[in-house]
């Protein structure tokens, strides 16, 4: 009997365990895998990310030179970030904010002619 009373008293006197969320937020941890973003100026459109992605959320069109990602299909595993040979892909620790509209990530890139050959060989040896 009354085994929980001391606990209740302790909770009364200590700080609250929850946050008043929208007004008070916790800063994300350093290594957290949040938003997936692409430094498109570094990107070579080699499409290794699209091949490696387990949920196949990335589509790369080399003819139209676009890089597209469906953030609703993305599972935030970070496999593409590890695989990117140009280190163009990166993840921010912050999560995506709520939005009114469904937003897709669509970026217009450029195939760098000089390095193209090297990366192409890279794909083949993968």
């Amino acid at each position, binding site marked *: *009997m009354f*085994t*929980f009373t001391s*606990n*209740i008293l302790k909770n009364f006197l200590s700080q609250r*365990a929850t946050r008043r969320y929208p007004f008070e937020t916790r800063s994300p*941890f*350093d*290594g*957290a*895998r949040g938003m997936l973003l692409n430094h498109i100026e570094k990107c070579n459109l080699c499409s290794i990310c699209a091949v*490696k*992605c*387990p*949920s196949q959320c990335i589509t790369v069109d080399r003819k139209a030179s676009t890089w597209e990602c469906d953030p609703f299909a993305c*599972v*935030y*595993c*970070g*496999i593409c970030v*590890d695989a990117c040979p140009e280190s163009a892909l990166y*993840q921010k620790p912050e999560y995506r904010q709520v939005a009114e509209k469904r937003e897709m990530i669509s970026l217009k890139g450029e195939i760098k002619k000089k390095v193209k050959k090297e990366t192409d060989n890279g794909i083949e040896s993968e």
Partner: protein
Amino acid sequence: MSKTIIPFGPQHPVLPEPLHLKLTVEDEVVTEVIPALGFVHRGLEKLSEIRDFHQMVQVVERVCGICSVIHAMCYCHGIEEMMGIEVPPRAKFLRVIWSELHRMQSHLLWLGLFADSFGFEALFMQFWKIREKVMDISESTTGNRVIVSVNVVGGVRRDLNSEQISWILTLLKEIEQEISALKKTLLTDYTVTKRTVGKGVLTKHQAYGIGTVGPVLRGSGVVQDTRTLGYAAFNELNFEPVVESDGDCYARTKVRFRETLQSIDLIRQAMSKIPNGEINVKVKGKPQGEVVSRVEQPRGELLYYIKADGNKNLDRLRIRTPTFANIPAILTMLPGMYLSDVPVIVLSIDPCISCTER
């Protein structure tokens, strides 16, 4: 006495997951149970024909929402055994640390839900408050809260530095104190004992014969813990399987409570023994052969059967999750019990329907 058939689930306040039981009731006493599944069957095993064997690691993590590390670990063990890959020792210890963290958070989640199932809301809140600290460890060390994607074939993807290790150890100390403070309430309180002692009894003989696994089997007095096989780095750690002999809901609660504390001890041991070195090896070639891989999940023994024939896609992947083996136990436990005890008894096997319906 006339018979009444009462449907239990698939939507039920106690069970967040869709398990349907057709209960035949005489007066207030359950006489017969027929389970029905298949409300959320996803066919993830079939996905192995489309995704290659590296991508399947992320797929099998999504079999269960609670113990993703352990699913991925079991799958990676199977593929590594097939391809003859020797994982670096540091990666083995890191796998142990993360899998034990996941066991802790899964058990804390269950202890909370179980308290909730007989209406002890305050205890539920307390356990989930502690769990949040484990989730923080998980998020800061791996990047995600639950589905952490740290395992890959050939090792792990993230490392722990000495700062993180000391931070985890201080947090573990707090967690241990807080859990121990709840021990008296969980194990001696009138509300808890009245609802759990002698409910849903499974004798040692029955539990073994039905083929139950995990805390249900150990709660009935059978000493069986797949971790004693010594996979990952468990062969270098010192531990004894937690066993209780009564076989009722109370014994299962005790097993899970003691295992939570045991996990803290195992993490400490692993952190003191962790060697330096590489965390993964490069994987070359394609898997070929047939392998059965087993690990201990929070809910019990998990079995993967993997068959590959030298392609990048697997030939067949079969996942036997622990809840799948524990559901037949409901058929033995429920008859003779009061209808009001059904939620408590069903929850005492820790049903994970998303696991069951891969």
